[in-house]
Structures are given as structure tokens and as C-alpha cells.
């Protein structure tokens, strides 16, 4: 961080109470990393995610540490009258409550009575009303009912999800958008509002329009594995290379043709481009007009070349020669990236067990600070500090502790 780095955040001064379980963690993290004061409110025995492996050094749950950075943390028993009363005192001076509602959550009416300027965002699997509102849901079933699962995976196997819960990421960012939209509206009206964010619905947009296009194309979707369907053929998009896999498309269009031309030149420099390949007039190339036989012939030649190179050799060449080719990175390759290093993306965050390297800012602003403010809170780390802000003194806090309210 240079001395001239901005210190103010876009959401400085916004107070958020974060009641979410894991599907909503990202929303509060993003708001906090834009400058909001986000207070995570957990039951006295801690959020269930704290007990979920893998752990750091046998103690800290890594999903907790990863997705609750920049928040303060308190414990409060919301199933007890005294705990609920204290929460409402926090609500009176808060701007936002975000929640993944549970049996002990607060309804909008009660929150709105307490603070008419409050913005309340509830993230649920399917939405708060409607025929599936009472259904149980999770990442798997949200993705299943979005069209996204059906078309992900290999044609000869069941549909497959991303092993990480992408609906939580999509829904978490959507919830953060909802918060800021509602805050912008409040600038004008002075009133807060309630927002209902559904993970199922959040997962439809990641089909990038294909779901809406069904009405015109009749395309119900299909799994193509490492391939992509074109008008007259299927084309490989994920290719084995010497030490892993790379993503590369034989698709055309003005944005892609220069990359195909450059790839053929690269192959030719290694004596691996046939005369037939070199003879192609790329200015007239249209992948939608190719037959499967033509695609297979091209693929054999590109595939042989990729198998002779490593992921890093191919990606280095892609950067130097403007090839539209990407390595299938895992965490090790991502952490070793020279591009991310040059941008100062990874940051070492000091928590109780020592520094831990995290992905840092999700964007960079020239004028405001975006990025991690503090490590994820230890259980109850800020209880005394936060409750003192609503007038709970040390003696009162001791009584609350004795009664297991905090």
C-alpha cells in the first residue's frame, strides 16, 4: 500500500448487521470491503460454519476465515427476549440488516417499526413467497432449478455442479447490489425497504441469456463436456496439454480470428502446422459453417500441438502473441500468478494464528479504498465494543454473559 492509497470507502459510515449463514457471507464481506461497518451477529455457540472443515491449524474454519474478512463480530442469543431486545437497539442505529432467515429471525414489519430508514435484505433459496418458498434448498438445489446444472457436465453422466457453491457467490453479490440500490433509493425517499433475494433466480442469469432464448431457439440445453455445440458441429474447448488442461476455442468472429491466425503461426514455428492448416483463408472462416469432419481435422492438429506444451508455456505464449488460450488453473497456479503479484492482489491478513494469504480487493478505485480491512472476527471478539456503542456497560455485559445472552 503506497502512502497515496485512498483511505475512504464508498460505503463509509454505513452500519450493517449481518445475520447471515454461509449462503450470505459474501454479501457482508463485499459491503465491508467497500467501507461499511459490518457487524456479524452469531449465536453464543458460534455460526455453524465455524465448525466446518477444512480447518487452519486444526482450529479456524477456512470457509469462515475466507468469507468473513473485514467484519466485526458479536454473539447474541436471538432466541431469548433479552437478546432480541439488544438486537433491536442495534437496529435502531443501523442502516442495513442482511439475513438468511432462520426460525429466530426478525420480520420486516418489526424491523421497519424499529427503524423506518432500515434496509433489510433476506437471502433465501427460492424467495420468501411463492410455491417453493417453504422448500428447503441449498446450492445444489438452487443450481438444479436454474437450468445451469442441466447443461453442466458430460453428456454420458448426470448433470454436475461446481464443487464450490457458486449460487452463494451469485446470490451474495446480488444481495450487496440490492443493499446499495436500496440505500440510493433512501437518499431520495428517506425510507428503507425490504428486499427478497433468491438463489434459484440468481442462478438463471449465469446461463448468459440462453434460458430466455429458449423461446426463440427451442434449445432446452444439453451437456457437452469439454466441448461446445455450434450450428453444424461440436467443437472441443478444453484440451489436454503436457501437464494439465487448457481452454481454447476454434470459434471465429472478428474478435477471435487474429488469435487463430497467431496460433497457426506459433504452431508453424514449431514445425507443427500442416500445409492444409496454413492454407486456410481465415478472413473467410466461419465456424458455424464447418462440418464435423472439418472440425475433427482441425482439432487433431491443434490437439497434438497442445499435448507437446505445458500450461505455463502455452499461457506465456498466449500473453505474448494474443492467443485466446487459458490454462485451467488451480489454487497453486493462481497464487503464483505474476499478473496478480504485479497488481498486489494477494494480501497477508494477520489473524490470531498468524498471517494468512487471502485474495484481496475485488476491484481497484483511484479515489476510494476497496479491500480487506481486518481478519474475520474470532467468536465474540467485538461483543463488548459493539454493545458499548448502544450503552451496555461492563457490569451489564457481565450479567449478559452470566445469563448466556452473549
Amino acid at each position, binding site marked *: 500500500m503506497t502512502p497515496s492509497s485512498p483511505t475512504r470507502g464508498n460505503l463509509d459510515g454505513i452500519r450493517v448487521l449481518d445475520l447471515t449463514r454461509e449462503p450470505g457471507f459474501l454479501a457482508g464481506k463485499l459491503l465491508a470491503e467497500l467501507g461499511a461497518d459490518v457487524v456479524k451477529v452469531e449465536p453464543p455457540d458460534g455460526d455453524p460454519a465455524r465448525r466446518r472443515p*477444512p480447518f487452519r491449524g486444526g482450529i479456524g474454519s477456512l470457509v469462515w476465515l475466507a*468469507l468473513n474478512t473485514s467484519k466485526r463480530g458479536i454473539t447474541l442469543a436471538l432466541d431469548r427476549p433479552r437478546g432480541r431486545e439488544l438486537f433491536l437497539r442495534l437496529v435502531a442505529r443501523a442502516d442495513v440488516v442482511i439475513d438468511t432467515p432462520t426460525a429466530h429471525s426478525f420480520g420486516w414489519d418489526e424491523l421497519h417499526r424499529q427503524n423506518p430508514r432500515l434496509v433489510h435484505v433476506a437471502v433465501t433459496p427460492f424467495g420468501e413467497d411463492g410455491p417453493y418458498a417453504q422448500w428447503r*434448498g441449498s446450492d445444489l438445489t438452487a443450481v438444479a432449478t436454474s437450468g445451469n446444472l442441466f447443461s453442466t457436465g458430460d453428456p454420458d453422466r448426470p448433470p454436475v455442479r461446481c*464443487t464450490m457453491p457458486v449460487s452463494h457467490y451469485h446470490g451474495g453479490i446480488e444481495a450487496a447490489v440490492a443493499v446499495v440500490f436500496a440505500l440510493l433509493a433512501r437518499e431520495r425517499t428517506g425510507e428503507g425497504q425490504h428486499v427478497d433475494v433468491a438463489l434459484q433466480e*440468481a442462478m438463471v442469469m449465469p446461463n448468459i441469456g440462453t434460458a430466455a432464448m429458449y423461446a426463440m431457439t427451442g434449445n432446452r440445453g444439453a451437456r457437452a463436456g469439454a466441448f461446445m455445440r455450434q450450428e453444424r458441429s461440436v467443437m472441443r474447448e478444453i484440451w489436454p496439454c503436457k501437464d494439465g488442461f487448457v481452454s481454447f476455442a476454434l470459434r471465429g*468472429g472478428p474478435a477471435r480470428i487474429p488469435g487463430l491466425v497467431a496460433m497457426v503461426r506459433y504452431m508453424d514455428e514449431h514445425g507443427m502446422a500442416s500445409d492444409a492448416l496454413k492454407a486456410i483463408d481465415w478472413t473467410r472462416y466461419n465456424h*458455424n459453417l464447418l462440418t464435423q469432419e472439418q472440425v475433427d481435422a482441425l482439432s487433431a492438429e491443434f490437439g497434438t500441438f497442445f499435448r507437446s506444451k505445458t500450461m505455463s508455456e502455452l499461457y506465456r505464449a498466449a500473453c505474448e502473441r494474443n492467443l485466446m488460450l487459458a490454462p485451467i488453473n488451480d489454487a*497453486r497456479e493462481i497464487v503464483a500468478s505474476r499478473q496478480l503479484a504485479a497488481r498486489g492482489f494477494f494480501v497477508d491478513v494477520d489473524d490470531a494464528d498468524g498471517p494468512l494469504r487471502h*485474495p484481496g480487493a475485488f476491484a481497484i478505485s483511484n479515489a476510494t479504498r476497496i479491500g480487506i480491512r481486518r481478519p474475520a472476527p474470532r467468536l465474540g471478539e467485538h461483543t463488548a465494543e459493539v454493545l458499548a456503542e448502544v450503552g451496555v456497560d461492563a457490569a451489564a455485559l457481565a450479567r449478559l454473559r452470566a445469563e448466556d445472552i452473549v
Partner: protein
Amino acid sequence: MTALFAGTTILEFGGGAAGPVATRYFADHGATVIRVESRQRPDFLRTLRLTPTSPGGLDGAHHFAVLNANKLSVALNLSRPEAIALARRLALRVDAVAENFAPGAMAKWGLDYASLVKDRPDLVMISTCLNGQTGPERHYPGFGGQGSALAGFNHLTGWPDREPVGPFGTITDSLSPRFAALLLASALLHRARTGEGQHIDLAQVEGGIVCLAEAIVTYTANGEILARMGDRSRHAAPHGVFPCAGNDRWVAIAVHDDDDWRRLVQAIGAPAWANDSALATVEGRLACVDDVERGLAEWTRGQSRRDVAARLQAAGIDAAPVEDFADLHEDPQLAHRGHFRPVEHAVLGRHPVETHAMRFSAMAPEIRLPAPRLGEHTEQVLRELLGIPADECARLKDAGVLD
């Protein structure tokens, strides 16, 4: 209340999904979003399936139409100095500028933040590309397919014994518009409260990696590399997709804990294999997950996916039919929320477009306009925003500036 962004104008440069999907958030809540386009280099979504016989040509692309409803289109051939001057005047006049060209393209035209801010001190502008505006790999070209691979999503999606596949739909193209909407909205709030503008550099790969923070810190803390594991979970079993009656029909079932398992065993009629006490704990079920999945598949096979889901949900178990794109248009929950909304398009006729996943108590998204034909609103925008009269527009058009 009137629409949240009524009176707000956003100027958009670029194409594909990552940029244009972001501004739809604002357009659906009343913003005037003006796309700057050119026939000389059309948005690739206008050409993705283009053949010489495609109805409507550049104006008939389904993919462009479903992503760009509620926007206006201005045709400006930015290889012409007069067109650049008009783009600059528009950029200085509007409330925010969004662009997703390759880094350096806007600077080449003098339309980058550093250049614009001299004449518009409170400019709010967002630039988004794969690798960001700085760094040695900033010029690396790519679409969402490359972003998904670089950010680690492909590696984490698929079967352990097969090639990685990546989630359908190039996920950085859908995560980054959400990030961009959040960043742009927060910048507008900051300007409303302080008067200060800003330029935001959103690298789509970095946004994706922030989402996968759990996988990253699992590696930096313990050296463990998380990898794709089909539909299974490290924390729960059974957790997967099971065959049902019909061609390519499936039901998703997630048993999160031992109480869920007891309810599931009852709901499927307590078959002998499921009553094995070794399966009463998640550790026990994970240890013989192949057998558990096989047993459950025997029960689901031949039943309707909707019946299985309804029956298991009635028993308090997390289960849902796997829906394809056709099914979504019959999904009662999406219908209840009004996810798909009809719009009338000059070439394509009446077709659905999507809106977002958030429903506000005091305002509602609205689809007012179909996606624009290329340059459909050129004269209107130049007249209304810049006061350029019709005869001057005609001259510029004849000169190839508005192309």
C-alpha cells in the same frame, strides 16, 4: 416511488455479456443506458450465430436481444475523429460511463478516465476486462471461457476422472456484471454524499478469485488443493443428482445431516440397505458413498422427478427437479417472481427477457424497451443530449461518422 434511476444516464462502450449485463441492473430500474456501437466492429453477440441468411442481420441476434433490453443504441464509427468528438461530448454529459474494451482502447480514442476527468471532475467510470487495466498480462485477450479457466472455476467443475468442464455459461461473465453493478452503484452513492467521482478497474478474473476465497486460503493455509468432485460434498452424503423417469431427467437430493438422513430413510420406505446403522452418521455415509448413491438411485429411477422432489420436500428434505431451459419457463416459482418478462422486438417479435434476483418492497424492475437495433437511437440521442439538429445528423451520417 418513480423508478430509482429515472433521470440517470449511463453511457456504455463494449459488448458481450460482462459489461452489458451490468448496466441492465440500472436500466431495469429506470436508467437511460446508451450503447455506443459501430457497424465497423459490431458487438460479437450480434455476430455469434450470424450467417449470410440470418433474418435481420446484426439486428436479429437472439443473444444480443435477450441481454440488451431497455437500452438505446448510438452508432459512432470511432475510427473517425468527428465520431470520437461526439462520444466524448456524450461521456461528459452523462452520469456514468461503463466500458469493457481491451485495456488501452479507450485511451487510444482519448476517452479514458484520465482524459475525460479533466473536463468532468466528478466523473464516475468503470472499466472491466479479464486481467485488469495494469500488470504484465493486461493485454491478454479473452472472453469468459478464458476468465473462468484463469480464475479456477473450470478446475473445480466436472468429474475427478474426466476433463474439467467449467460451469455452463462462462461464469466470470455472470459474476463480473454483478460486481460491476455493485461498484457502480456504490460509486454513485459516494458521489451523491461527497461530490467525488472515481474510476474503477474491475478485473473479471480477480472478482472470480475473491468468490473462490475458500479454495485459495485452503491452499495458502494448508497446501491443500481443492478439486472437482462431481456432485458430491465433503460435508454431506448423499449429495447428488439421481436418475428419474424420462429421457435425461434427474432429481437433485442433498442430505445435510444425520436428521435429514433419518427422514430420508423413512420417506423412501426404510429399505434394508438404508437401515444399516453404519449409515447413521455422515462419516459412515461418506465412507460408503458409492453404495448409498446406488441405493438411492434405485429408488428414484422410474419415478417422476417432480413427484420425488415434492415427496422428499414434504418430509423436510432438500430436493428439487433438475430443470432444463424449457422447464424454467414452466417453473411456478420463477413465474411467481416474474423472472421472464415479454418484450416486442422489431425482428424477433415477442420474446422473453430476464430480470434480476432481487425484489424490492418499494420499487419494481420494468422492461420498457426491446434491445435496440444497431444505431436505432443515434439521431434521438444526439438531438436530446447534445442538441445536434437533424440536418447536421444527416451530414454526419452521409460522411460515415454515424456508422
